[in-house]
Every structure is written in structure tokens, then in C-alpha cells.
């Protein structure tokens, strides 16, 4: 047992060191492996050294570990880089469900020793909290997952926020009443479970797809807190340590993400931003015409530029065009054109998502320029090529207070001499609003699938 405590101590240390190292590009990968190592010794230490684990149950434990490992590895290996956000959301939901189940079983343990009202109130409270947070995290993550794979639409019920807050208070009220012995039926557990799952669904349902990363990050920290509840329950330091660490780091990460979009967390949670058709077209109507450019004209324009900035968006990722985009960059560089990438903090579906995608196709790290550093450079840029991005270059965020994205920091692409927007159609972006940039006299549209169009652009450039 004492040796197990030392293992837990080491594991806890690896978590802190792991997260610390994850914060720097050079050491990030090792950091992840160190934390994974700590997790492994904590798991095996628990199996073999924890008092009370029956050897007769080893079969079940190892069976579960093997099943989970095989499925988890397969899913994690198979998922495309574009699908990362939903994958994280899915795994997060699994952790939440796990925490919820622990509470269910522990409550059952209590029932075997007598009425649950005889149990220590603190223990009961922890069990209920673990169940509530775990279930919310599970249900919420699954809805977020469904939204990201576009199987679930945004749905806003009438008085949704009132219903949500009321429901949450009801859940906490019932849990408190049961903890303090005012409710005596053991079925209260299932009531709490059902209501928490319902809350998880209602909590995420009205939040627009564009805000999903923030929601996932928040649910991530919820699961951390749920894991910490387990730590309290078993007086287990490593669970407490890991759970709280993720809970606080996750919360801060959520706030940082909101800041990147220049919005507050409350605004994200109750603002119904991008709530489907509700907000669409709420911004001012744009009248004007768009001008198209041919691929060969675009190629000529770029070839004789000094500096080209590429603004990649989710459209590039969906079209799997990151590799050909890198090729375009190389062809242009060979012609002596300076090429940079402008990375909006929320480009893609999560902060940093675009960097991961571009890194996948070998784009050099120092070419990826963050928004604050690239914005002053647009004035000296000849051509900005916007590939599958929309909302992050929408000037309405700066000059139209009626727009739902008003206040969000954007890339100042309109400062450049020319902009070329590569898009499949004139359809509005993820936030569901029109983009007046398309109608700017300096802008030309290049319609088509990002991958196909970029490939043709590259061959045009090569033949020039």
C-alpha cells in the first residue's frame, strides 16, 4: 500500500510536468508521453497494489482494459486531422460517463449497508456531485460530438435559458435535499441521473457550432472536476490531483479561447451565437456585385507579387487541401515571392487546429504567423489568398454593430492590395452571416473546390 502511494506521487508529478511540457512546441510530444507513462504506472499500481481488489476480478479488469485500449487506439489512429475536435469531445464524454458510473456503483455500495440517509452526508454529496457533473459532461460531449459531425442541428427552445437554469437549480436542489436526508427514496439517484443527462443535452443544444471548441474545453474541465470527486471519495491523491489540474487548466483554457474571439464565457453560453438560422441575415443587407477571377489571372497576379499571404480556413481542411497549399507556397517561393500564412486564433474548429493541419503537410513552423503579428503586415501585402475561410475575414466584425460577430478580432485582409477568396459558393460561413469583403472592389472570387482549384493554380503557375 505504501509503495502504491509512491507510485501515485510519481504519477501526479508526471501530470504536472507533462502539462508544462505540452505548453512548448519543442517539448510537447515528450510531455504527452511522460504523462502517459505516469498514467500507466498509476493504473497497474492500482490493479496490483490497491487493497481490496479481488484477484478473481482481474479477468474483468484486464478484459476491460484490453477492449478499451483496442477500440481507443483504433479510433484515435483512424480519425482524420480535421475530425480532431469531435474525437476529443468523444473521449471526454467517455471520461464523464466513467465518473458517473463510479457514483452509481458507490451509491449501491452504501445501499448494501443500510438506508443511504445513514451514510456520511459529505460522502453522499460527493457521490451526487460526481454523478451530476459526470452525466452533464457525458451528455454534453455527445451532443457536441453530434454537432461537429453535423448530425445534430442547433435547436433553441422557447425560454431555453430559463429552462436550463431552472433545471440546474432543480438538480442541485434535489441532490442537496437527498444529501441532507430530506429525500429518503434511493430512486432519487436515478432521478438525478436522468435530469443531469437532460441538462447536458439542453446545455449544449442551443450553442452554435462555431462555439463548440469553447464548449468542449469547458466540458473537459467538468470531467476533470468529476474525476476529482472520485479522488475525494477514495481518498486517492492521484485522481484528485489529475482531476483538479485538468479542471483548473481547462477552465483557464476556456477563458483564453473566449478571449481569442473577444467574447465572454457567459456570452458564449447564453448568447446563442450562431444559433442556426436565427441569426442568419441579422447583419445588414449587402448590396453590390462580386467579381470573379480566372485561375490563370490569379496565377499571374500571384507570380508577380512580392508578398502573398495565405489565409487558411476550415474549408481548406475539409477539402484536404493543406498539402497542395504547401506546394503552392513552394512554387511561389521558387519564383521569389515571400509567402506567409495568417492564422486566426479560431481558424479551423479549435484554437491551434489550423496549425496542426498545416504542420501535417510539412508547412514550416515559422511561416505560420498569428493574427496580431500578421495584421500590420497586410498593408505591404500584394495578394491575400483566402482559402475556405469566411467569418475570420469578415469586416462586419469591425464596422457593423448589428452583426452577430461584431467585436470579434479579425484578420485585416482588406488592407492588402488584392484579395482572392477561394470558396465553393457564395454560401454564408459557419456563423451564418454575409461577408461584405466579397463585394469589395479589391476582391475577386475564385469559385470551386479548394483542393481542385489549388491544384490547377499550381499547374498554371508552373506553366507560366
Amino acid at each position, binding site marked *: 500500500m505504501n509503495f502504491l502511494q509512491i507510485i501515485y506521487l510519481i504519477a501526479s508529478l508526471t501530470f504536472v510536468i*507533462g502539462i508544462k511540457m505540452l505548453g512548448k512546441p519543442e517539448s510537447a510530444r515528450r*510531455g504527452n508521453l511522460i504523462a*502517459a507513462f505516469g498514467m500507466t504506472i498509476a493504473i497497474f499500481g492500482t490493479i496490483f497494489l490497491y487493497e481490496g481488489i479481488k484477484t478473481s476480478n482481474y479477468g474483468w479488469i484486464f478484459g476491460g482494459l484490453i477492449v478499451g485500449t483496442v477500440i481507443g487506439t483504433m479510433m484515435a489512429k483512424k480519425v482524420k486531422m480535421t475530425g480532431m475536435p469531435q474525437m476529443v469531445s468523444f473521449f471526454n464524454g467517455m471520461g464523464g460517463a466513467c465518473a458517473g*458510473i463510479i457514483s452509481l456503483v458507490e451509491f449501491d455500495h452504501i445501499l448494501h449497508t443500510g438506508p443511504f440517509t445513514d451514510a456520511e452526508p459529505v460522502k453522499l454529496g460527493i457521490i451526487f456531485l460526481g454523478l451530476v457533473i459526470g452525466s452533464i459532461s457525458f451528455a454534453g460531449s455527445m451532443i457536441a460530438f453530434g454537432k461537429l459531425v453535423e448530425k445534430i442541428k442547433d435547436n433553441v427552445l422557447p425560454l431555453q435559458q430559463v429552462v436550463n437554469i431552472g433545471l440546474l437549480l432543480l438538480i442541485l436542489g434535489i441532490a442537496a435535499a437527498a444529501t441532507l436526508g430530506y429525500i429518503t427514496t434511493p430512486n432519487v439517484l436515478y432521478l438525478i441521473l436522468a435530469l443531469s443527462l437532460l441538462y447536458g443535452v439542453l446545455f449544449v443544444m442551443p450553442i452554435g457550432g462555431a462555439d463548440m471548441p469553447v464548449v468542449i474545453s469547458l466540458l473537459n474541465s467538468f470531467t476533470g472536476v468529476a474525476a476529482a470527486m472520485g479522488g475525494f471519495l477514495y481518498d486517492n491523491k492521484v485522481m484528485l490531483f489529475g482531476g*483538479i489540474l485538468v479542471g483548473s487548466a481547462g477552465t483557464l483554457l476556456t477563458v483564453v479561447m473566449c478571449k481569442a474571439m473577444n467574447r465572454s464565457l457567459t456570452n458564449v453560453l447564453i448568447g446563442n451565437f450562431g444559433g442556426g438560422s436565427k441569426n442568419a441575415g441579422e447583419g445588414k443587407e449587402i448590396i453590390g456585385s462580386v467579381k470573379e477571377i480566372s485561375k490563370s489571372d490569379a496565377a499571374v497576379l500571384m507570380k508577380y507579387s512580392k508578398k502573398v499571404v495565405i489565409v487558411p480556413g476550415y474549408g481548406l481542411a475539409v477539402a484536404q487541401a493543406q498539402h497542395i497549399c504547401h506546394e503552392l507556397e513552394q512554387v511561389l517561393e521558387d519564383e521569389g515571392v515571400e509567402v506567409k500564412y495568417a492564422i486566426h486564433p479560431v481558424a479551423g474548429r479549435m484554437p491551434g487546429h489550423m496549425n496542426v493541419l498545416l504542420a501535417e503537410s510539412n508547412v514550416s513552423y515559422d511561416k505560420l504567423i498569428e493574427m496580431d503579428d500578421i495584421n500590420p503586415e497586410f498593408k505591404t501585402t500584394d495578394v491575400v489568398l483566402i482559402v475556405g475561410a469566411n467569418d475570420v475575414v469578415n469586416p462586419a466584425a469591425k464596422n457593423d454593430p448589428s452583426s452577430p460577430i461584431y467585436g470579434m478580432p479579425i484578420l485585416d485582409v482588406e488592407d492588402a492590395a488584392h484579395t482572392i477568396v477561394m470558396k465553393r459558393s457564395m454560401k454564408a460561413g459557419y456563423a451564418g452571416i454575409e461577408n461584405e469583403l466579397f463585394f469589395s472592389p479589391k476582391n475577386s472570387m475564385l469559385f470551386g473546390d479548394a483542393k481542385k482549384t489549388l491544384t490547377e493554380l499550381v499547374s498554371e503557375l508552373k506553366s507560366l
Partner: protein
Amino acid sequence: MNTIIDFIANNQLMIYLVILMIFVGIELIEKVPSVLHTPLMSGANAIHGVVIIGAIIIMGEAENMYATILGFIAVVLGTLNVVGGFVVTDRMLEMFKKKKK
């Protein structure tokens, strides 16, 4: 009320630990470049998979069918969280490895 005060008195170390961990968590994230937010979130996601320890405990102590079945499911789900989380993070970070110019 008394139970709460007793609880705090009996679990002082735990409570100190929680408070300090909150600050450590905040401190660790504060200076991270936004490019690493996604891998970091994913890594943190894997770390809260530590909830698997609880799943192993309920599974290991299981005496009846109810606990056995739920325990088994919990172990599977917890493992999914841990293994999937770390593998996905590693895949993301693999791409950040140093490249020759």
C-alpha cells in the same frame, strides 16, 4: 454545518492540495502559445482519464452483478478516455516535430 467544519478539519491536506492545484493549473496554461491549445486540451483530456483508477477500484471490489457490469463498462470507457486521449494527442504533436528547412 458541523459536519462541513469537521470535514474541512479532517481533510485539511486535501483542501490545501485542491487550492494549490487550481493555481498550478492556471499557471501552467497561462503562457502557452495559441498554436498549442488544441494539443493541450487533448492532453488535458487524456489526463482526466485518471478517473479510470476509480473504475478499477469499483471493478476490483465488485461483489454483485450490478457492480460487475457497471464496473466493467466504467473500465472500458475510462480506458477509451486514457488511451484514445494520449494517442490522439501524440498524433497531433507528431506533426510539430522539428523539420529541416
